[in-house]
């Protein structure tokens, strides 16, 4: 589903040049749950942004669903993104001025769904995530866990092939964190590919594979069993 070859991202200012990703090559198959880990500033979020088609690499190739997308224009990326990718962020990134329903509805609007179809789909997913009773509330009226649940609803409402989660539990206590991770796990079990950036070993343990980054490079790729062994030893 995803394949990168020598993916490199360099940020340039007038005086400083920073290599955020340095020739990253790896592959993710459909239905996988992959965690990306590494210290702050190692390039995790940059990688996630490129994988999520929010940014283009400076060089290298990125194959998404068999298409080489590294040179795609913003419009092409937006088009591909809205059909195939859902995002979950650490700080939820819900739009404060829109209600729970309207936030979840947003991707369907841009996909051109009819009003009745949107209503049906949104209500379905809200029911599924058990947040239906809050459908008319605004994000600021919800707890952190509830907000993240809404964010997950928004990420999955268009039934994307891939969900990218950037520290999805970073702003949540452990109970709400577990709740969100269980949601992601169940989505993965139903066939959705998930790539998650995290600092948390506990969250990473939900994944089937861990990609470890350091200074913009992949240092190890562990199967979760190896990882479990490594941490237990």
């Amino acid at each position, binding site marked *: 589903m995803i394949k990168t070859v020598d993916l490199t991202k360099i940020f340039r200012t007038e005086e400083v040049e920073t290599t955020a990703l340095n020739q990253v090559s790896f592959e993710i198959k459909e239905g996988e749950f992959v965690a990306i880990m590494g210290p702050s500033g190692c390039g995790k*979020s940059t990688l996630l*942004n490129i994988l*999520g088609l*929010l*940014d283009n690499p400076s060089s290298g190739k990125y194959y998404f669903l068999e298409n080489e997308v590294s040179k795609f224009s*913003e*419009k092409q990326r*937006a*088009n591909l*993104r*809205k*059909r195939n990718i859902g*995002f979950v*962020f650490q*700080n939820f*990134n*819900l*739009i*404060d*001025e*829109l209600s729970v329903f*309207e936030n979840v*509805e*947003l*991707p369907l*609007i*841009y*996909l051109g769904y009819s009003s009745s179809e949107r209503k049906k789909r949104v209500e379905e997913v809200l029911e599924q995530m058990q947040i239906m009773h809050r459908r008319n509330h605004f994000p600021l009226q919800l707890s952190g866990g509830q907000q993240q649940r809404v964010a997950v609803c*928004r990420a999955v409402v268009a039934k994307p092939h891939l969900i990218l989660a*950037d520290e999805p539990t970073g702003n949540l206590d452990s109970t709400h964190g577990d709740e969100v991770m269980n949601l992601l796990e169940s989505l993965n079990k139903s066939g959705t590919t998930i790539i998650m950036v995290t600092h948390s070993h506990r969250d990473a343990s939900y994944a089937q594979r861990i990609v470890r980054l350091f200074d913009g490079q992949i240092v190890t790729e562990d199967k979760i069993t190896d990882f479990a062994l490594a941490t237990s030893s």
Partner: protein
Amino acid sequence: MIKNYLISAWRNMMRSKLYTLINIFCLSVGITGAVLIVLYINHELSYDTHHQKHERIFRLDGKYTIGGQLNHLAITPFPLGPALKLEFSQVEEYVRIFIQENLLIRIDDKEFLEDDFAMVDTTYFDVFTHRFIHGQAHGALTEPNTAVLTASLSNKYFGDLNPVGYTFNVNQRNYQITGVIEDFPDNSHLKLQCLLTINQSEHQQFYSLAPEMFWAINQNYTYVLMNEGTSIDSVLENMEAFNDKYIAPGGSQIGGSAEFAANPLRKLHLTSVMYAPKTNNRSTLLIFSMVAMFLIIIAAVNYTNLATARSSKRAREIAMRKVTGATRSQLIFQFLSESLLLSSISLVLSLLLVEILLPGFNSLADKSFSLRNIFAGNIIWQIIGLTVLTGFLSGIYPSFFLSNLKPVNILKSATFSKTSSGFLRKALVIFQFGISIILVAGTLTVRNQLRFLQEKPLGFNPENSYVITIPDMEHRMQIETLENMISQNPNIIGTAKSLYVPAMGHNMNAVKVQSENEMVDALIGTNFVDSEFLDLMEITIKEGRGFDKELRGDINHAILINEAAARQFGWHEEPIGKTINWQYISSDESGIRLTVVGVMKDFNFQSLKNPVEPIMLILGGQAADQFSENLRTFRHITVRYNARKDAEVMAFLEETVRAFDPVRMPNIVPLSHGFSDQFGTEERQGTIFAIFALVCIIISFLGLFGLASFLTEQRKKEVGIRKVLGSSGYSILILFYREFLTLVLIAAVVAGPVVWFLMEKWLQDFVYHISMNVLPIVLASTLAVAVAVITVSYHTLISSRQNPVDAIRAE
């Protein structure tokens, strides 16, 4: 999708009430101003379109050259209309209009003194369209001595009665009323009260002139109706033979020539020609259109500035919309729909404001608009168009700016704080204050110019003087009796009689003047006066002497000329003794030879819109029997009175004039009357201009208020850190002042030359004008600085007094 945009827009507006209020207020005020101006301009451009055949109707103007001097006049020779119809098949019909002032109307035992009556050809209603309340257009003016009244006049004379069939007396002649028409609409270049038939043969006799000379006298307007499918140019381009046949015989006798120009009926109101009915200025319309655009742009600038400054508040929404699939064009559309929503709300409010402000605007602009006018014709579409334009102008930059934000950058941090490029915002503030400075400095210059005109010495003393007008010949013949009656009063300092008084009429006549050894053609104003006139008016003799009633030789022979005449005729040395031959008022072929006995300093005998032209004063009175009775018989007595007895003198004069002529209403006005309302239009426009300048300043003030409020909030952390590091509240204030005041000062530097250039051009249109100086620009800039200081102070004082810990903790 649009519903989602509107929901988001509405909730954003509700979340930031201060900014929403500022935006709506400014946009409403901007649109209100623009709506009023749209009404005004549409009205000005709609003149005379109520005539069904208006596209085929033209007024002929004459370009007359006499003595090398070209005069472009709206009045034409009496025989022009019929001759054109005779010679050119393209001319379907003509109509001539003589506007009559000071007519004495008698109905039974009632008398009225009326202006704005017109003698017209029987063809009037074949050319012009009017709605009849009584009677009908067909045949209304075909019989001699018939009249058609406007509704107001009919009401004044006859109340609710239908007056058709009644007769009334106009200047000793009976007219039968054949119809009543609706009043001339506001947007008619002619505003008449009554139409009377003219009789060509009588008219010709009145002047006792040979037929060819009749072409040399211009007194009436000539309108032609062209046949459908023909062009006026086809007539004008073939006027050579016409001129040879009709103009040349009379023209050669007075050394003059004439050409004719045609003005479409629709454009007459905006075509300023001498002796034309009151017109408006095209440049005024242009200036008002620009003011309307300025208002809209300034309001739009506020929106743009606030929207981009506050972009960080929308950043997350933009990022998430992009992440969930919004394209840039969808976001541009979203933000444009927000600004359009706001401008639409503002339109509704502005219509309410227009309703409230219309009475005041009407009295200022001398119009009678109502809200109904907005919904007539296509005005509402123009206003909707303006509203859409306002929304578009407001939203275009923010929409491009906001939609260009990169979600990657925004999502990196929870507190995204990138705002629009400071450069653009600064440029917009400079622009806004620049416009305000231009308008304020322009207003001050207009005021200075009008004050200058009001205070300009006229070359005679118009103070403490009344002018009594005697309209009818019977009483004019006995004017000395009235003068004697008036002179008895101890409050009267002096009296003088004349045919005309300054700025209340004069004649221009073709004469021959002495030049080297021959007599050459020239044009000169004439007035008949008594021997007291000069002293009473306090007109100064520069050379020679005034009239001497003891010298019998002065009567019929002596004239006084002004400096302008001496200059124009080339009489730089020894003008005394030079002669002028006034030929055409005498049946004697050699004419009347008049000799200059004195040269007067120039005085303004016309309105200050005209330069001082050559004029000669002739001793009038019954003894001046070489001149026609109509000229030599005085019409006015000018009375100089004791300054503190104004009311008493007026009462006395009214009583005396009534005793002298018991059946007529006394016509007494101050001598300054002719000068008092000559710049009324400019004064009204100046006031409107001042109001719009004030509105611009208020909008700019609110925009800066909103911007300062946001930017100080955004720099809270910086202020906190500066204070922690030891900065005083005072130096924080200076920090903010420096930033905003620099912008206002740059605006002043940019606006200065612009306003200088524009106003100097405007002043050139006045014959008498001030020279442009920097004071209005300095004052306007000072005002702008003061506004900026007040605006910024409110927020910066709060900001500079804050506890630094709060600011830092908040971050």
